[in-house]
Every structure is written in structure tokens, then in C-alpha cells.
């Protein structure tokens, strides 16, 4: 049943979130540290294991893929609730501090990516 997939996803999501919350408390900050990341790793491991055991039914998988497919609409809706006016009207310093450090980080992407990819599919230069 499709609801099994939704439940599996929800279980991974909540467990990961709790780990993130716990990790935040452990290092003493008021933030969820990597909750989404832990959830994702859990989901990958659990579904791969189920797949391996041939226990992952198509219907169950559909319950997860449904949410995965809703991802882009959710992101569009998220863009529509950003404080765009606030960002633009806060003056030069906010705009510069938002753009310049980001640009520097963009330029670092190919340098670090090369590290992880010896075979280097990277053809273009920054």
C-alpha cells in the first residue's frame, strides 16, 4: 500500500530530525545540525536494504516518489513566500554581503570538485 511508503519516509524524516536536534544540543547550539542529511542517508540505506531483500513493493515506492515529485512545486511556493522586498530595501551592505561572498564560493566549486573527481568530467574553466 502507498501509505507504507509515506510512513517509511516519515519515519526516516523524523528520526533524522531527532538526530540533528540531539547533535545540536550536544554541541550546545539552538539549531538542527544536519537533520535533513541524516534523514536522507537513512532513507537511502533502508530502501536499498528493502530492495535487496526484494521487499520494496512498487506501491510502497510510489508513496515516496509522490513526495519526491512534489519537490519542485514546493520550492516554487517557497520562493513565493520569501521576503524579497526586505532583501532589496535593506541597503547596499545587505546586497553586497549577500552577493560577493557567494560569488567567491561559486568560484571555489570547480577547484574542490576536481579533488573528488580525479577522472574529471570538468571541461570548462571557471
Amino acid at each position, binding site marked *: 500500500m502507498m501509505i507504507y511508503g509515506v510512513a517509511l519516509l516519515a519515519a526516516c524524516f523524523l528520526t533524522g530530525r531527532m538526530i*540533528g536536534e540531539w547533535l545540536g544540543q550536544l554541541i550546545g547550539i539552538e539549531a538542527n545540525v544536519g537533520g535533513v542529511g541524516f*534523514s536522507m542517508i537513512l532513507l537511502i540505506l533502508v530502501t536499498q536494504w528493502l530492495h535487496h531483500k526484494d521487499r520494496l513493493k512498487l506501491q510502497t515506492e510510489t508513496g*515516496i516518489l509522490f513526495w*519526491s515529485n512534489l519537490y519542485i*512545486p514546493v*520550492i516554487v*511556493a517557497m520562493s513565493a513566500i520569501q521576503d524579497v522586498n526586505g532583501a532589496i530595501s535593506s541597503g547596499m551592505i545587505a546586497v553586497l554581503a549577500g*552577493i560577493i561572498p557567494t560569488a567567491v*564560493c561559486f568560484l571555489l566549486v*570547480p577547484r574542490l570538485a576536481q579533488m573528488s573527481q580525479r577522472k574529471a568530467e570538468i571541461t570548462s574553466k571557471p
Partner: protein
Amino acid sequence: MRSVSDVLMEGGVLIAAMTTALILLSSTWISAYLTKGKIPGPAIAIFAGLVLAYAGGMVTGGNHGIADVSLFSGFAVLGGSLLRDFTVVATAMGARFAEMKKAGLAGLLSLGLGVLVSFAVGAMLAVMMGYDDVKSMTTIGAGACTFIVGPVTGSAIDASSEVIALSIAAGVVKSIIVTIATPWAARHIGLNNPQSAMVFGGLIGTTSGVTAGLAATDPKLVPYGAITATFYTGLGCLLCPSVFYVLLQWILG
């Protein structure tokens, strides 16, 4: 007798879903026919979302974009952090663990470097713009990381509320810029495989910007970018008000 708008309002999330579908439908059409597929549909849709947010802010003067217009209040749920995180996690279904392990060390390094570089450049900009006390520099530098790291840091070290507001704005500008610039920059920075997406997520860090930007570039890359980006804000909240703050105090001694 209840008015039509009362009935519509009850279905807040559904109205948001229908509106979003309409945006995606027209964006896909614009992408295919007006740009000949050069600009991906999701990129246009996300940009349209930002324009809608701007319009909402103009009309209401609020700071939740279109969600402040009562008919569209459902956007706050559909685009809220719960559904965002839930659907991001769901995208992991299409990701491969083996691909993630390949990025290993580079992924970790990108996280540390991402926070450090954003903070340092942000703090330097703060000085150049006249915010030369350590608390303001630290808070604005933290805001250059994400719009969560900024206020968390600012309130931890007791910075002024004006500076905290600035740091939030800087973080929001960052997430918007990343959203818009990623599909355009992707070709130039080799952002076309899982490993570079992970490095990208770690270096840039702002989850909303990274995931939206990657969705507009190539949806297959989303889970890889998200998995590193999700650690960024936590690391920033950890380093900025402690190590970086002390370091700045020591440098400016």
C-alpha cells in the same frame, strides 16, 4: 450565506497548490516556446515565485511574500520548511550512496571552507561599509553564511538589532542570488555531476538557495547538494559566535 472568498479561503493549501500548478504550467510553456528550452521551466517558475513574493510584499507591507495576502495564505504551508524538508528527503530515493561516498573528503572540506570564506569576506565588507566593531563584523559575516546563522550569531554575541536585521537581509539576498545564478553559472563551474553538486552544497550552504538552484539546473542533482548543505547552517551557528568571533577579537585586538 457565506461569500465565495470564505469558501475559497478554507482551502488555503489547495489554492496555493493550484496557483503553483498554474505557474509551472505557464513556465513550462514559456520555456519551450519563448526560450526554445534554453532556460529550464523550473528556473522560470522559481523566478516567477520570487516576483510574486515581491508583489505580495508591495501590497501588504509584510515580510512573508504572497502568503500575507489572505487568499494566498496557504503558500506558507505549501512552501514552509516542513514540506520543503520532507520533499527534499524524498528526493534521496533517486540518489546513490556510492556516488556520495566518492565526494567524501572534498564534501567535508567544502563545508568548512564554505563557512570560513563567506564569513571572512562578509566581515571584510562590513568594515568597508563602516561597520567596524567586532560584534557587527561577526554578525554581518555570519549573515553572509545563511539567514539563520546571522541572527543566531547576532543574538548570541548581543549585537544591535539593526545589524541583526542586516544579517538576515544579507542571508536572504544570498539565497535569492543562488537561486537565480545557479542554472546560469552551472556550465561555467562544472556543476553537472553528483560530486560537484555535493561540493556546491557544502560551499554555498543556504539550503533553500542550493536546492532551488539545483532544481532549476538539473533536478537529479538536488539530493546531492542538499545532503551537504544541510550541515552548513549548523556548522555556521557553531563556528561564527565562538571560534570566529574570538578570532576576530584577537586579530583586531
